[in-house]
């Protein structure tokens, strides 16, 4: 009897929590769609803003955000996975690797504005990159790298030891084993980590405000500055142009949603390839 009551209570609690979180999500999405969609025209995506009231579209911002995100992906992917492979497979457990892990865990919790400040001092001024996509991407990379590193490391550690034994036992070298057995097995989890990291970078404001800048021009080279969608939204909202701000939010939402769909699709593909 008491077991049934406990069971029922646990179920009810789970339903309540799940229901609440879905409700919150729906309210946010609903708000953005209701306020952003009415004034939305396709031209919004392909024209530049103009005038003091920042009317017109967000084309330069889409380019800036995409450029920044792509560059971050290109930096964080290889560096994060490479460092994770080293930590998990080759470095062993010693004082240095413990220190690296501790540092990564600490950095993962640092507010993004602090990374922005560091990026401003180090990349923008000290390395004289100026407000640029490159400075922004490097700052974003530093911000998301710790999480990428730790998640990838866990993914590599989660690969069963029997795969390594099997491969080494057949005469393969450590490198061959790592590259062609361990990494492919860890790939789904690492790809998810990468997509989530990149999603975070795409949605970041504080860290790019002081590093990529606010110029509303279309950046074509890494050393040019640009204004991301998030920074544009921030400027619109703080100057009181609420309706265009919601339109930008709608674009951001659509992009983040497609990131997540892409992640889901990738996972499904990997699973089909490896597990049957």
């Amino acid at each position, binding site marked *: 009897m008491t077991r049934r009551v406990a069971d029922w209570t646990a179920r009810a609690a789970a339903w309540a929590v799940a229901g609440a979180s879905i409700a919150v999500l729906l309210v946010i999405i609903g708000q953005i769609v209701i306020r952003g969609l009415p004034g939305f025209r396709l031209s919004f995506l392909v024209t530049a803003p103009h005038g003091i009231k920042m009317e017109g579209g967000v084309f330069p911002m889409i380019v800036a955000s995409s450029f920044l995100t792509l560059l971050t992906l290109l930096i964080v992917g290889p560096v994060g996975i490479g460092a994770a492979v080293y930590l998990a497979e080759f470095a062993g457990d010693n004082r240095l690797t413990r220190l690296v892990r501790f540092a990564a865990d600490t950095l993962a919790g640092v507010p993004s504005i602090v990374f922005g400040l560091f990026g401003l001092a180090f990349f923008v001024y000290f390395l004289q990159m100026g407000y640029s996509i490159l400075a922004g991407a490097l700052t974003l990379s530093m911000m998301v790298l710790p999480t990428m590193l730790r998640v990838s490391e866990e993914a590599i550690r989660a690969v069963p030891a029997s795969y390594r*034994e099997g491969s080494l036992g*057949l*005469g*393969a070298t450590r490198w*061959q084993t790592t590259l062609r*057995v361990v990494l492919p097995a860890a790939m789904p989890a690492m790809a998810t980590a990468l997509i989530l990291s990149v999603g975070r970078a795409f949605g970041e404001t504080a860290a790019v405000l002081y590093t990529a800048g606010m110029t509303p021009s279309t950046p074509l080279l890494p050393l040019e500055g640009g204004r991301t969608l998030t920074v544009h939204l921030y400027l619109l909202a703080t100057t009181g142009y609420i309706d265009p701000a919601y339109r930008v939010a709608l674009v951001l939402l659509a992009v983040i949603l497609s990131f997540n769909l892409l992640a889901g699709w990738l996972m499904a593909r990997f699973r089909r390839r*490896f*597990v*049957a």
Partner: protein
Amino acid sequence: MSEYAIELRNVSVAYGDCQCLADVSLAIPINSVVALIGPSGCGKSTLIRSMNRTNELVAKTVTTGEVNFGGRDVYGSRMDLRELRERIGMVFQRPNPFPKSIFDNVAWGLRSNGIRGRKRLEEAVERSLRAAALWDAVSSKLDQPALGLSGGQQQRLCIARALAVEPEILLMDEPCSALDPIATQRIEDLIDELKERYTIVIVTHNMQQAARIADFTAFLMAEQPHEPSRIVEFGRSVEIFTRPGDERTEAYVTGRFG
């Protein structure tokens, strides 16, 4: 040429401070099946792994003594580990195919040895799968994931994978313990066929299995708990299972302890 495929002389293995095996001497005749039996935790896996140096893959171990393989010391500084593990293949307790296709699993050893020719790989894959009695079941789905096979098929795939690099010795650590009786029977039949061309060392907990398939049997045990294990008795399986020379062997094979 020696009449032994591999010869252990006074081999001792320690995990850190914990001495696990002491003074094991064992000569495995060519083209024979040798079973290693003994109570759980006595070091059968450690012993079989010492033959192709896979102990050092899982833990920090210190091995002393000599393992003579083809006139060379396996633990000598001139031993090439890749060559060693190719020539002495290993099949593990749990089937451990890679999360790759059936073809890629079997081709793994050859590919990692730099063999790329599609034709050559295809031939080797077919030959190995046939040798492992798996060809008929999988020939039409070589590009499917290996993890989609049944447990018994996975284990035969692992055997095929080991055979693909044409080893001389096949080490099998409880290859049937995760399998049902029918799959076990098929692996036993397979071992019977394979011994014409390979030397096989097999660890098993199943006395009937050892008696059925092994020409020779080694019984391994520690004199006292917390002491390193030694070979109590080694001889023809018929002797070990019908007229054991040592009373501990008799107690063990008749199931009175262990």
